[in-house]
């Protein structure tokens, strides 16, 4: 007989091993789909790997794809640390994209434009995230549902803008006019799409780690999440911590949108985010809510997405495999997390 038994502590190496186990399980499970599609499993995964991380150009493409997911992953990780259930990173990203695009369309010196885009985009994301947090603090409204529903509100607002007053008069398509050329984030390596925003994302992760692990606010966020009662007794204003967390989380998600507008698309369209906000939840869970873990987790998902397209061309396996991998990875990780709270014990039959 086997029995689940509660653990009192979790070994540190679990943080590294569990995501790897989850990813391995995911790849094994999804290999069934590759086989159904009539392709060789090793070949398909091989193409995926070489097309996403095999040469320097592929790596830059993967990093460009990873950047928004690093931001949304950080947004979700920090929010979840405080047990502020922000499912709304998608909407906050869109708000950041729209706001920064507005700014980027105003002619002004390039450096100023980029700086303002980042500030305004982050602020827009923060304002959106503040809504579910305020509703929870003031009215005890469940933040899961309210932050989720706000995604749809922001999406329709975006659509109303680009199909209405903000429609690009030049092309006539439902897309916004492009931002000024001078506001485009500089490309760091000639001949690639690797833009400044990617570096900012890579720097943001250790900064967020420092904030969570080493600052007073980070301490308050952690205590609020782990034990709000203790936090209250310890003189922490839990409501304020939740609001600060929401501002921070929303700002990070907003920056994801800024990067997409400033460095990748240079305008806003309906599919500017292929669900990067939801991917952020996958990234954050794979990272075990650790900001430093967000970077490899986001790069993994990005590699799967970039690699899937090449795999599809080479083997005929639909590129949508990357979507299945994403969902499976999240579920596998959740199951793996059980082992941090429980251990399997053999129970003697004679009892």
């Amino acid at each position, binding site marked *: 007989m086997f029995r689940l038994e509660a653990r009192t502590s979790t070994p540190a190496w679990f943080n590294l091993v569990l995501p790897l186990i989850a990813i391995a399980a995911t790849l094994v499970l999804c290999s069934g789909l590759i086989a159904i599609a009539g392709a060789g499993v090793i070949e398909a995964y091989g193409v995926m790997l070489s097309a996403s991380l095999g040469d320097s150009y592929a790596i830059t493409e993967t990093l460009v794809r990873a950047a928004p997911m690093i931001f949304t992953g950080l947004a979700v990780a920090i929010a979840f640390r405080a047990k502020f259930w922000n499912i709304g990173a998608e909407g906050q990203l869109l708000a950041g994209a729209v706001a920064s695009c507005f700014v980027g369309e105003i002619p002004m010196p390039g450096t100023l434009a980029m700086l303002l885009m980042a500030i305004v985009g982050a602020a827009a994301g923060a304002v959106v995230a503040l809504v579910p947090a305020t509703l929870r603090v003031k009215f005890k409204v469940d933040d899961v549902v309210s932050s989720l529903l706000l995604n749809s*509100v922001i999406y329709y*607002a975006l659509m109303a803008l680009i199909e209405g007053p903000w429609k690009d008069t030049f092309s006539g398509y439902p897309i916004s006019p492009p931002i000024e050329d001078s506001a485009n984030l500089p490309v760091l390596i000639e001949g690639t799409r690797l833009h400044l925003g990617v570096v900012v994302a890579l720097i943001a992760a250790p900064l967020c780690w420092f904030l969570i692990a080493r600052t007073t606010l980070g301490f308050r966020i952690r205590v609020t999440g782990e034990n709000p009662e203790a936090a209250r007794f310890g003189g922490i204003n839990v409501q304020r911590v939740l609001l600060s967390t929401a501002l921070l989380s929303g700002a990070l998600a907003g920056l994801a949108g800024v990067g997409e507008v400033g460095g990748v698309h240079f305008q806003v369209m309906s599919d500017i985010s292929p669900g990067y906000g939801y991917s952020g939840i996958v990234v954050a869970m794979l990272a075990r809510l650790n900001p430093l873990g967000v970077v490899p987790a986001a790069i993994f998902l990005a590699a799967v997405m970039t690699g899937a397209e090449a795999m599809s061309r080479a083997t005929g396996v639909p590129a949508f495999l990357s979507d299945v991998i994403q969902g499976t990875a999240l579920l596998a990780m*959740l199951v793996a997390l059980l082992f941090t709270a429980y251990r399997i014990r053999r129970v003697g039959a004679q009892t």
Partner: protein
Amino acid sequence: MSAVFEQIFQVGFLAAIVRIATPLAFATLGEMFSERAGVLNLGIEGIMLLSAMAGFTATSLSGSLWLGVLVAVLVGAAMGALHALFTVALGLSQHVCGIGVTLFSSGLAYFLYRLIFGQQSVPPSIDGFKPVPIPLLSGMPVLGPAVFNQFTLVYLAIMAVPLAAFVLYRTPWGLSVRMVGENPRAADSAGVSVIATRFQAVILGGALMGLAGAFLTMAQFNAFTFGVVSGRGWVAIALVVFGRWDPWRSAGAALLFAFVDALQLRMQASGLGHIPYEAFLMLPFIFTIVAMAFMSRNAVAPSALLKPFRREER
């Protein structure tokens, strides 16, 4: 103004409302059963999509519409069981699992659809359900063409609402569902299996979400597209809250939303676009968020919603 009015409220408007409300009613009832048992199912968006795809594919390959409906319902129930396995049996966090189920099932739906049908310039379609007029009743003025000359699935949805209310409020199983959603500890003491009841409710919910998906691809559009659900699952999440976790109120909320949606479609079609149609589509979400702020004071949500139950932990 009266010309505008006539253009919008012409014959067929009521019928359109009923048609739009049908998948929402199935999905909302499904989510309601799940939540009444204490399990939030954010997998709804993906479950509807996968069921819509599965039902469409089964019909497309077999030629039988009802086989397609059956497959959609079974797929929905299976995905419900998956969500229950994670959230009820393993006690994992419901919102994250729900997002996982949505990502997984929509990914699977896209993948399998592309695998089976390839990339075609014109999406394949099926000969979907046809309206079945009910003798005598369909001859009634106004209500006749609107309500009694519809698809069989619409009649099923109309019957599902009182049935759901009966099951929830008048049967021992319904009582168990409400107990495990309100106070699982007490239900457990009273000899109700919390785990089994929650499993059953989430699976029933998934089956209803499957019916919603089937309606979209087999009666409403007769084809599967990647955007066929396009947020209807999230709408259902909102409608359950707006309908205060009650079958009648939730169905009413579905009708209200369908009215707004039909109105928006009419205004778009008639070119009376002073107000962007997206403003209408936003309404249910905004209303629900505002309603939540007012409702929370008298706490109508099932008390044990989002809380896993582990017997040994007291």
